[in-house]
């Protein structure tokens, strides 16, 4: 111990080991990844070390995209797809949140619906499309139903989990101040469950996009899924990739919108 104070002891900085585990995401990195990958593909296809049969040239995809836009077909496909997605997802998500909250609040609803949800969750919803066609018709109805059903189950599971996780001591506090049942649900349970509900919604909406494309591939004249299917069956890779790009953009847009909502609604968390 005494040599602690002797001048001969070398002093050195305490090693820093508190870093990491706190990811932040500078925006430009995400963009840079896209740019690098696309440039590689462009360079490869131009120089010939990627054969045009394996991957279309990004600039050609862009051209196809422009043609699609100019012909007005882009909007024709996109508008039907967006309508299906919005109607289906809004239906499924709102029913899902409502059901999830009820499961979270009432014992009988929980006892009755949790096993049912567990039974429905793993069913690949696309397998039920023929059934939905019989029930809701070959047109839009069956597609709305498929997308709604697909978003419903994950939303229910996320929501009741989130309601279960609301701090009980806050609910006790509400009761101790004689707040009405309705006030407790609206002012304590729902805001407390909001982080979980929103992160569940992220997953539900991605599933909605997948189901949208699947439904459109199985029978639709217009829509991004139909467009991709047609391009695929003709081995028109440029158009196939143009379609896939639209889907990716759709996904990014959805996730950005939810991010914005989170930033606004959950500002108290940061």
């Amino acid at each position, binding site marked *: 111990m005494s040599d602690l104070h002797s001048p001969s002891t070398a002093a050195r900085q305490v090693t820093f080991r508190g870093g990491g585990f706190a990811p932040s995401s500078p925006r430009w990195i995400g963009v840079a990844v896209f740019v690098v990958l696309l440039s590689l593909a462009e360079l490869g296809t131009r120089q010939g070390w990627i054969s045009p049969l394996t991957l279309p040239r990004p600039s050609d995809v862009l051209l196809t995209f422009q043609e699609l836009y100019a012909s007005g077909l882009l909007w024709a496909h996109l508008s039907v797809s967006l309508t299906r997605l919005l109607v289906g997802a809004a239906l499924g998500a709102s029913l899902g949140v409502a059901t999830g909250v009820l499961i979270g609040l009432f014992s009988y609803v929980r006892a009755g619906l949790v096993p049912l949800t567990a039974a429905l969750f793993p069913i690949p919803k696309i397998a039920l499309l023929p059934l939905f066609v019989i029930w809701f018709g070959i047109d839009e109805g069956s597609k709305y139903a498929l997308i709604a059903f697909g978003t419903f189950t994950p939303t229910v599971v996320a929501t009741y989990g989130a309601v279960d996780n609301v701090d009980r001591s806050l609910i006790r506090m509400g009761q*101790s*101040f004689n*707040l009405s049942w309705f006030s407790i649900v609206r002012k304590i349970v729902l805001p407390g469950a909001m982080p979980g509900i929103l992160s569940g919604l992220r997953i539900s909406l991605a599933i909605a996009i997948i189901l949208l494309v699947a439904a459109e591939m199985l029978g639709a004249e217009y829509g991004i899924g139909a467009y991709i299917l047609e391009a695929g069956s003709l081995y028109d890779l440029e158009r196939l990739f143009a379609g896939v790009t639209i889907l990716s953009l759709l996904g990014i847009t959805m996730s950005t919108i939810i991010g914005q909502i989170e930033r606004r609604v959950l500002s108290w968390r940061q």
Partner: protein
Amino acid sequence: MDIRLSGVSHSYDNFEVLRDISLEIPSGRIVCIVGPSGCGKSTLLRFLGGLEKPSRGEVLQIGAPPSDCLNPLTYIFQDFALLPWRSVRGNISLVLEDHGIRGARADGIIADVLARTKLSDFAKALPKQLSGGMKQRVAIARALAVNPAVMLMDEPLSALDSQTRELLMDDLVNLWTRTPFTAVYVTHNLAEAVRLGHSIVVMSRRPGEIREVVHLDKPLDQRQHGDPDLEEKQKYLWQLMREEARAADAELVHV
């Protein structure tokens, strides 16, 4: 409004927690409850405010609460229980909204309770921006806003450091001196008990029974940190509790 407990006993399943508690909480006085860990103090407080029902015995309100009283039995919790998504102001207006108090009337009440708890500058702050002591002052302000007849406090200061605790005890004494309120104050800390209590209920280890009720006659505003007579009382309380605490501690090890 007084509160009377008569013959209150309680068991969780077959686990006896409280045994035959009879106690009177007179209006305008602070009753402190001390006792070893796990003896049922928090449970007793939940009975007093109607958050739980005892298996035997009665909890009675004697007399009507004052007419301007919005929530006669009001808690102040150990963990503050503030809504993190509402500002200081919003947390207080939460308990007024359900009584139809909004707008100018709510603003008046909120401004008053914030001034009384020295929080006027923080009305817009979110709970995460406040220190522990300030959070508990917000909780006190929220309780004052509903004009309680009885305040039920479960270790309100034990999450705070000792300096903040001293300051908040002074605040509570000042609040009480200005307008005496009735309070039941559960604590582990004997110094808090002798500083704030008009009477101090000492409980035995689980199953909790009342071992002794100690009365302190010195007015609250004349009590100081480190008063010799208070120290004396504190020592006496500690004597009472020592055996119980040791036994309770040993019990936990053997469970």
